[in-house]
């Protein structure tokens, strides 16, 4: 029983990290129909720059804020100069964002070197409790709490604010939103910045979680995020949250019990879901 609980908590923590990456991806795809393959690179940049700020300042919180700011700034630059010109051309989007992913990964090696970087947890988060045989690691609970906060914040934004109303309407009919007098391009920019900021936050939280970061983490987690978005239903925030938890928990269990198929399990899960629900768990068919 203790093992099951430990694995579940680990899985939820991993799911929270994947959700931070997938949430932006699904928002961007849902509203803008942009397949952003470079999204994972924001995760890696968030991790590297966040850790760099953390080591320079000694403050983990400043590192987190710095990562979000870097992610948001990069999001602004990328949307304005690289993504906007290819909005209407899906093929160009794929080529441009794939290229961007490679370039951004290589830039990390140029700035921070090709070697892995070790990351220490701040002392106040480096604790654990043993309760009834279950080990509760403080940092994992912290990651889960941030994941929940971000999810609730996004739900609030989508359901209770004018920006959220525009985003939900834009997912359904962009032309009509514009015909009502809304500058949808400005909303695209805000959503892109928000998505990139969340990806960078995910990267920064991942760094001490894994203890070591390398330039390719963006690719690894980017693929996971895409799988989550497809399973959850492209454009569905709640679907992404559910799918991220599913992928995280299933991954934790499979790695423990059947490590030989752990790598394939996400693909199998995706095939399984799409067989019965082609639009994903909560996607619109």
């Amino acid at each position: 029983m203790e093992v099951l609980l430990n694995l579940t908590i680990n899985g939820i923590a991993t799911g929270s990290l994947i959700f931070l990456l997938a949430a932006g991806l699904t928002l961007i795809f849902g509203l803008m129909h942009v397949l952003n393959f470079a999204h994972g690179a924001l995760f890696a940049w968030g991790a590297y720059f966040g850790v760099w700020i953390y080591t320079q300042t000694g403050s983990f919180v400043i590192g987190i804020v710095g990562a979000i700011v870097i992610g948001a700034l990069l999001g602004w630059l990328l949307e304005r100069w690289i993504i906007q010109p290819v909005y209407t051309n899906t093929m160009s989007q794929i080529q441009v964002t794939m290229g961007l992913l490679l370039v951004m990964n290589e830039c990390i090696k140029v700035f921070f070197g090709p070697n892995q970087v070790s990351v220490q947890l701040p002392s106040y988060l480096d604790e654990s409790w043993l309760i009834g045989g279950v080990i509760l690691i403080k940092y994992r609970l912290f990651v889960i709490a941030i994941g929940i906060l971000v999810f609730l914040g996004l739900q609030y934004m989508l359901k209770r604010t004018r920006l959220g109303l525009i985003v939900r309407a834009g997912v359904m009919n962009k032309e009509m939103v514009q015909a009502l007098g809304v500058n949808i391009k400005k909303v695209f920019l805000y959503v892109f910045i928000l998505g990139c900021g969340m990806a960078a936050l995910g990267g920064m939280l991942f760094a001490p979680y894994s203890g070591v970061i390398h330039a390719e983490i963006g690719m690894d987690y980017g693929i996971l995020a895409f799988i989550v978005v497809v399973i959850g239903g492209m454009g569905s925030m709640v679907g992404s949250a559910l799918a991220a938890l599913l992928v995280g928990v299933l991954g934790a269990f499979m790695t423990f019990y059947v490590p030989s198929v752990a790598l394939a399990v996400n693909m199998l899960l995706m095939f399984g879901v799409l067989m019965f629900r082609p639009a994903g768990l909560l996607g619109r068919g």
Partner: protein
Amino acid sequence: MMTLLKVDRIETYIDQYHILQGVSFEVKKGGVTVLLGRNGAGKTTTLRSLMGLNPIATGAITFKGEAIHHLPTYEIARKGIGYVPEDQGVFPDLTIEENLKLAMRKTDEATLERRDWILQLFPDLKTFWKKPSGLLSGGQKQMLAIARACVNDNELLLIDEPSKGLAPIMVDKVMSVIIEMKQRVTVVLVEQNFYMASTIGDDYYIIDDGRTVHTGMMKELKENEALKKEYLGIA
């Protein structure tokens, strides 16, 4: 009467297709101008071009004396032009309240007063206020689409085939609402239903093969059987 909208020899392409090949017309303030024509003549594309959704290649569109054809859609809307598309364009997952809230560019007293006036015109919208608009009937969706276009202080409404797919009783309802709206706003109406068009229209333009080919007062067209047969296929 003052000219509110002037469309001067506009040409519009959709992909490689040359849809509008010289559409010109003028809309006087305070009336209902009807665009008539057979299916595929270019009426819907004309309205979409006015809104900037299908940008024009040549020609000019002026609204209250100001050229608007180079503006993006949202700025055209903010100039005071409301649009009710052929498919109504309601957001199915949003409630009626949210659809209207999204459309409201201001929340001042005048806008709230207009919203209340609209809800009096369309009591069904008030009844299903918190219901997702995707669950409404075709007629109710049409009411919502018109309500959304009227809730701002627009001076011009572009309404595309409001009777399409509606039961006769709903057509009468929509018609009476447009007649009521004439008191407040100028309307450009695209309509295939000649009964509706001729009942509420003041003047008309016939579009054929992407060109305006005839214009006049609606009461004259009602009696011109030859013209109706030639361009509208009404025997």
